[in-house]
């Protein structure tokens, strides 16, 4: 693993004297229909024996023209399309988009007073969805490595969260629950009870996951010291979220650039420490997600404790939402990293341009750098640790 033969030594005739065996580079297409690429990602891999010498991602197999659609739909109508970007954390995508529109409105002089109760509801639901997204990341990462059981455990807890969401907004995957100016409906009593039950039960489950996978020797051997990313490279490639934090950079928009009411909660930002290997390896990225689930659990607990009595959930918004002419880039911390929307308005009900900065798109780019000099099986582990969602990359 440590010493990689540069392929020029072997492929060129000059290397023949030193190494009598002549080997050729092998080109492999991984995907778009491949079980461990998390969707329809296609990687064009050049290998030298078992070693990967070059990785080129080919995107666009799920390009769904979201940015074109934004220019044809009103601000309200586009919310449902943000659901379909990061479909594992649709609530957070909704939230980011609504936040961007609200902030654009605010910066252009329109008052948007989001009720206190709605802010708490947003935080609770958003953090629950962060847990759900990380649970899928945890489960599928186990599948990538070869552990089947964690997937079923993760899916079971995810179903519990989806039940809550179904009671809150009536859908299992595509919620369109957040709206510009608040949320659409309040949390009903039975869903609140279920959230409380979930808070009580979840830490025990988290311990169970740690016992199942985190400390498992085979898992550690597969992930420690694999796919090591240093902080400078991560920043250069624009990585955010658990990928950046796994490399030891303490950067979280919930703390650094607090939006909504995150400044009222007490939580930590987990960073990779290199407990079993080097800082920034696959295990660190995985472990950051596990710790983040715990932090999200803490936030939900505090929010449920302090939630004000039920009241209005929507700010007073005009029925035909018009954004005054102007522009703005606003962002929020999604489970995958920093998601942002750059909105240009010229005063109408339809955005003139709405560009999405998707975190997984930037996290994917680093595979070109980190994939070099790895075994193919390690490449699978690295892709899994980046936690890619193709709906968001291709938009």
């Amino acid at each position: 693993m440590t010493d990689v033969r540069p392929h020029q030594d072997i492929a060129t005739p000059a290397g023949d004297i030193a190494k009598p065996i002549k080997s050729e580079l092998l080109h492999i297409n991984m995907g778009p229909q491949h079980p461990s690429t998390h969707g329809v990602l296609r990687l064009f891999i050049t290998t030298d024996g078992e070693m990967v010498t070059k990785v080129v991602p080919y995107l666009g197999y799920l390009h769904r023209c979201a940015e074109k659609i934004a220019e044809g739909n009103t601000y309200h109508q586009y919310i449902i399309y943000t659901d379909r970007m990061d479909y594992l954390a649709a609530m957070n995508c909704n939230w980011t988009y609504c936040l961007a529109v609200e902030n654009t409105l605010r910066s252009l002089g329109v008052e948007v007073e989001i009720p206190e109760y709605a802010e708490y509801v947003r935080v609770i639901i958003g953090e629950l969805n962060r847990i759900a997204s990380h649970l899928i990341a945890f489960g599928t990462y186990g599948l990538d490595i070869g552990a089947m059981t964690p997937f079923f455990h993760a899916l079971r807890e995810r179903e519990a969260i989806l039940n809550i969401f179904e009671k809150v907004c009536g859908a299992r995957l595509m919620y369109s629950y957040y709206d510009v100016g608040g949320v659409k409906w309040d949390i009903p009593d039975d869903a609140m009870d279920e959230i409380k039950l979930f808070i009580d039960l979840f830490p025990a489950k988290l311990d169970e996951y740690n016992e199942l996978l985190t400390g498992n020797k085979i898992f550690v051997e597969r992930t420690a010291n694999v796919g090591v990313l240093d902080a400078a490279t991560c920043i250069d490639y624009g990585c955010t979220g658990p990928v950046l934090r796994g490399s030891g950079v303490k950067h979280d928009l919930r703390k650094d650039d607090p939006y909504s009411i995150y400044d009222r909660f007490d939580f930590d930002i987990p960073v990779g420490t290199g407990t079993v290997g080097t800082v920034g390896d696959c295990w660190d990225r995985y472990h950051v997600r596990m710790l983040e689930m715990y932090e999200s659990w803490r936030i939900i607990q505090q929010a449920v404790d302090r939630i004000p009595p039920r009241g209005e959930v929507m700010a007073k918004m005009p029925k035909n939402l018009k954004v005054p002419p102007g522009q703005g880039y606003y962002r929020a911390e999604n489970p995958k990293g920093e998601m942002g929307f750059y909105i240009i308005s010229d005063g109408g009900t339809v955005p003139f341009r709405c560009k999405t900065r998707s975190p997984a798109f930037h996290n994917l780019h680093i595979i070109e750098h980190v994939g070099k000099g790895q075994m193919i099986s390690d490449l699978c582990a690295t892709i899994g640790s980046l936690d890619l969602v193709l709906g968001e990359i291709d938009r």
Partner: protein
Amino acid sequence: MTEQEIYQRLQARFDDSILGFESDIPQPVVSCTPEAVGDIAKYLRDDPALSFDRLLCLSGVDYEGLDEKGKGKHREINRYEEDGTVNPVEDPGTGDLAVVYHLESFKHHHRLCLSVRVPRETPKIASVGHVWITAQYGERETYDFFGIEFEGNPDLRRLFLPEDWVGWPLRKDYEMPVRYNDVPLEGLGLAVRDEQ
């Protein structure tokens, strides 16, 4: 450092290349000429007082048909009709294209928005891929959607769409395709009744 100070600093260093500064909006915009972007980007990253080490977002914009009066009556984009067919586009656009860079510094926690307008006929701009590596993909994406050529990008190909795709989809005057090779892209308007 505030945007005003950054602008003055840039003004002092790159005199002619900096075209303007919109300061009366919440996220002020510095605009510059397309040829100088590479040098300005390098300066923005390397100058210790600025040290913009993160490129947050690289977006392309098509300013064709923007309503200058602020009434929101910009040019409508084309679409598939309800019966799934395509209407031809009569008037090709004439407005400018633009590339917008959103930058942030980890060290100083300040942000900057850099906007570069390029003419629609010859959309060429210097690449910043060697300054922030993440820009390489952003530039490929912008090339894919708007047809803006980034001079100096090591691998300027279409990113999302297939290599032999025709047209630049996110331009406002883009006509919806009827088919791509042997894949039909028109729809079946099942719910649309015949008039007869």
